[in-house]
């Protein structure tokens, strides 16, 4: 059998890709996992992302933010491939949440205790499900900020939007999540 040998340029490309793109695997996988909501789709999305990145490696400007470049490819791949027809979740009237919160304030101390009281009965799976109801634009910023811990500036670069838009999307995204989680908590009887 004759083994294929790579030309020097291809070899260099592979080495560059391996040293620059592959180290971003951890952050990208976690993002993909939260974005898609399951391991199989996350695997596929990650592979799509890296293969596209490799094919268009010559379009990547060396020395710029590789992670942001890869995140953008991933987000676009996700939107093209996995976008579901989503409508914004029906929001529970904020007054209802506020009223419940006011009652809790009198009996609880500390944010963690309060969070537990507000949504304590909601399972992690349900939190993921609630996250999945968000439009990708809101879901992306919430995942990147609250779960992956990126700064507003990093998110702005990843998603290619102004920092002010990151802030407003975060506010709206969290509010929608809050409403969804409150709804789950109510269904489970934790909120009366």
């Amino acid at each position, binding site marked *: 059998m004759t083994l*294929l040998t790579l030309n020097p340029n291809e070899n260099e490309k592979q080495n560059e890709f391996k040293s620059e793109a592959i180290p971003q695997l951890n952050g990208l996988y976690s993002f993909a996992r*939260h974005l898609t909501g399951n391991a199989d789709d996350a695997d596929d999305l990650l592979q799509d992302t890296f*293969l596209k990145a490799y094919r268009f490696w010559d379009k990547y400007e060396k020395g710029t933010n590789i992670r942001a470049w890869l995140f953008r490819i991933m987000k676009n791949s996700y939107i093209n491939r996995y976008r579901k027809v989503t409508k914004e979740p029906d929001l529970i009237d*904020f007054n209802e949440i506020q009223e419940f919160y006011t009652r809790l304030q009198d009996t609880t101390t500390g944010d963690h205790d309060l*969070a537990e009281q*507000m949504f304590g009965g909601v399972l992690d799976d349900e939190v993921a499900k609630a996250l999945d109801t968000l439009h990708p634009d809101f879901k992306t910023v919430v995942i990147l900020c609250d*779960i992956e811990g990126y700064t507003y500036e990093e998110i702005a670069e990843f998603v290619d939007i102004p920092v002010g838009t990151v802030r407003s999307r975060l506010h709206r995204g969290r509010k929608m999540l809050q409403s969804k989680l409150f709804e789950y908590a109510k269904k489970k009887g934790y909120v009366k």
Partner: protein
Amino acid sequence: MNCSEVLEHISSVVDNRLGGKELDEFYQHAKICRRCKDEYDLERVTKIFLQSSLHPFPPPLYLEHRLLTLIKTTTNSGNIFSSVFELLIKRWYFTVGLTTALILIFVWTQKPSSHSHTSPQDNNFIHFVYNNFDAVQKGETAQFTEDNNANGFGIGQLKDCSLIGTCNANYKGQQVTHSIYKKENCTIYCLQINFDSIKNNPNLTLPSQVLDKLKETGRYVADMHKCCSVILWVKDNNLFAAAAEMDINNLMAFLTDAEAQW
């Protein structure tokens, strides 16, 4: 700060991004505006709950290796092939499904294969029938449709079959009339020869048991090949033969109307 400015900055405060004078103004407003304070508190609590419920996922150990393999494959095999390869290895269930579907399509679309009936080129009349049938099955039928003068086949039209063509030919000094009929996709090859010319001809013979059977019952069914039938019969001192890739009963059903002697 008014309510709308405060709402605009809630996320920044929750994420510790606001400082100095702006932060002071935010808190001053929150002290006097219950709704804004609650919005801020609830967003903070939501973030805390989200962080306690969902955590970053580490990638599976195999992923890096698989990615590197895919990239090498892409490099080596070019875009179209690599895309297919990627699909095949990423979606094993797709591969299994596709293979199964292709096999099923292949099986379903295969009509029973036309097998060879080639027999020795000797004096045996039955071998002669099989060899001619083989040639007809291979499409060597031009002479049947070109010979317009040949209409002497003694059995006439076969039931429910269409006549494709007839021709006369001399074989080993004997006049033989050949005809081809079609029934759907099936070809029926028939021929006619003077029976005496076989009985007394060393160049064109029938095995003795066939001759005996013909003399005794007027017909003989050959069973050399499982997938096709050859039948011989005698009428008015003519020997007729019919060959087709079908069950003997089906073949006889087509011949019934033509040959009242059955």
